[in-house]
């Protein structure tokens, strides 16, 4: 695969905001059953604004860089702005990710949503998985989300750039 960018390497070298918040306002944890990667995000919210964020990640270099970059990007943002932060934006802030690693950034977006949902729930508000508050079509959105998760899982099994029709290849290191 392509090498990581310098930005990614920098965040692997010096991950920002690693750790735990003792009394968080929201916690989100997202795991991927296939590669076993797990990200846990803690947020602190004041006046509808994220004032602190910390993460713990079990995952590849990209997952760590995404987690670290994500915390930097969300601190200071309002909940609404944070909800608008896409995985693509995080990847771009890292000057890009190798194609096979793009899906790792989804882990970040998902963990952020989960943390905000947790925070909302504590406020008595239902945040739909689509990002809308009190969304009228919640069941549909949740179904769509499940599909997306399956796609994420699939991404761990399928080489993104494989030529069409190439037979499935064996896993395992090649040397």
């Amino acid at each position, binding site marked *: 695969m392509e090498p990581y960018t310098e930005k990614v390497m920098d965040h692997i070298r010096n991950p920002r905001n690693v750790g735990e918040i003792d009394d968080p306002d929201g916690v989100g944890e997202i795991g991927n059953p296939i*590669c076993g990667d797990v990200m846990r995000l803690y947020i602190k919210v004041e006046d509808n604004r994220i004032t602190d964020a910390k993460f713990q*990640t079990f995952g590849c270099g990209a997952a760590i860089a995404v987690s670290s970059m994500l915390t930097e990007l969300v601190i200071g943002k309002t909940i609404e702005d944070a909800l608008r932060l896409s995985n693509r934006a995080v990847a771009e802030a890292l000057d890009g990710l190798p194609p*096979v690693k793009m899906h790792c950034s989804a882990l970040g977006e998902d963990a952020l949503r989960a943390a905000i949902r947790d925070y909302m729930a504590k406020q008595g508000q239902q945040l739909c998985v689509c990002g809308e508050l009190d969304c009228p079509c919640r069941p549909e959105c949740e179904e769509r989300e499940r599909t997306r998760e399956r796609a994420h899982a699939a991404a761990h099994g399928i080489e993104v750039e494989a030529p069409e029709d190439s037979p499935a290849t064996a896993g395992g290191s090649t040397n």
Partner: protein
Amino acid sequence: MAYIYFDHNATTPLDPAVLEAMMPFLHEAHGNASSFHSPGREAREAVDLARKQVASLIGAQPAEIVFTSGGTEADNHALRGVIARVKAGAGQPPHLVTSAIEHPAVLNTAQMLEQQGCAVSYLPVDEYGRVRPEDARSAINDATALVSVMLANNEVGTIQPVAAIAAIARERKAIMHTDAVQGLGRIPVDVDALGVDLLSISAHKVYGPKGIGALYIRRGTRIAPLIYGGHQERRRRGGTENVPAIVGFGRACELAGELLAESAAREARLRDRLEQGIRERIEHVRINGHPSERLPNTLNVGFTFVEGESLLMNLDIERVAVSTGSACSSGDLQPSHVLLAMGFEAEAAHGTLRFSLGRRTTEEEIATVLDVLVRVVARVRAMSPMYRDFIKGRRPAAASKA
């Protein structure tokens, strides 16, 4: 700080003596070994000498050596060449027996053959990554054309009972192939002692150049070419001979023969020191592979609670090169098929590193790597939600296996 290279199973640096042997053929002596004039004849003689050197390291006749572009091509040639010859005749589809822990060069070729109608059996392995000869015996049937079991596994280093399997294959009149790419230069390799008909090797794993390898073909073995073209390699492999690389391969084999005993002993000693240091200084680790039937230079270690690639990247930052047991790091996101075949859970198969030592590895490097590793594992574990949970008693001592 100089870079510490503990990834010799991926590739080895070119030995300076090998480069020296190659240089004339990179400079003036540039003839095409199939040309009939003097520059061509000079090249031809150099190729002939190299063929003898390679043959001699594995106890073969020079005429039984076919140079290929590497181990992968040799593996493809062995599998497809044998199956191609069978297909023509029989009514029943040909049958191939291989193992679940082969290199992708064998596994993916086997899968392709399967798609084309060949029947394939994948032998399982025990918890140490070893194929059981009895399993081979039960898998072989009358349609079995070829049995292909690697000599030593590239990820965990486990040495396979190839001679025992070859004896069974011979009884059943099946052709026996072994991928000896990781074995060459690290353990003695002798085609007669192993009893194999076909054997793949690659120069860049024995301090030779990249892009050259060989398939040993025992005289009389029925096998079709893989690459058709001119009359090179007695028509068994077309393409202008890669003279400098062939010369380098020859010299590398010669050196490997001379150094084998000494470097195997040295590397095993250093490897054992590394293993012991890890066991003593880092908690929650497991050593993967066979305790004794293992390549002397290879150490595969699982670090619970962390993921291999992040360890690899952090070690790289500290100027230590290793690889993950799984190939996640090299573009394939699946957990290691070798560790899975050994019975690991996907999660446990992930936090794994392969340390592979080489001729130039020193005691100081072992000490440095140990210090770095202690630091890096701690740093990455501090980031891990699983480790946090474990420390807080919210989680058992991990999904580890051993």
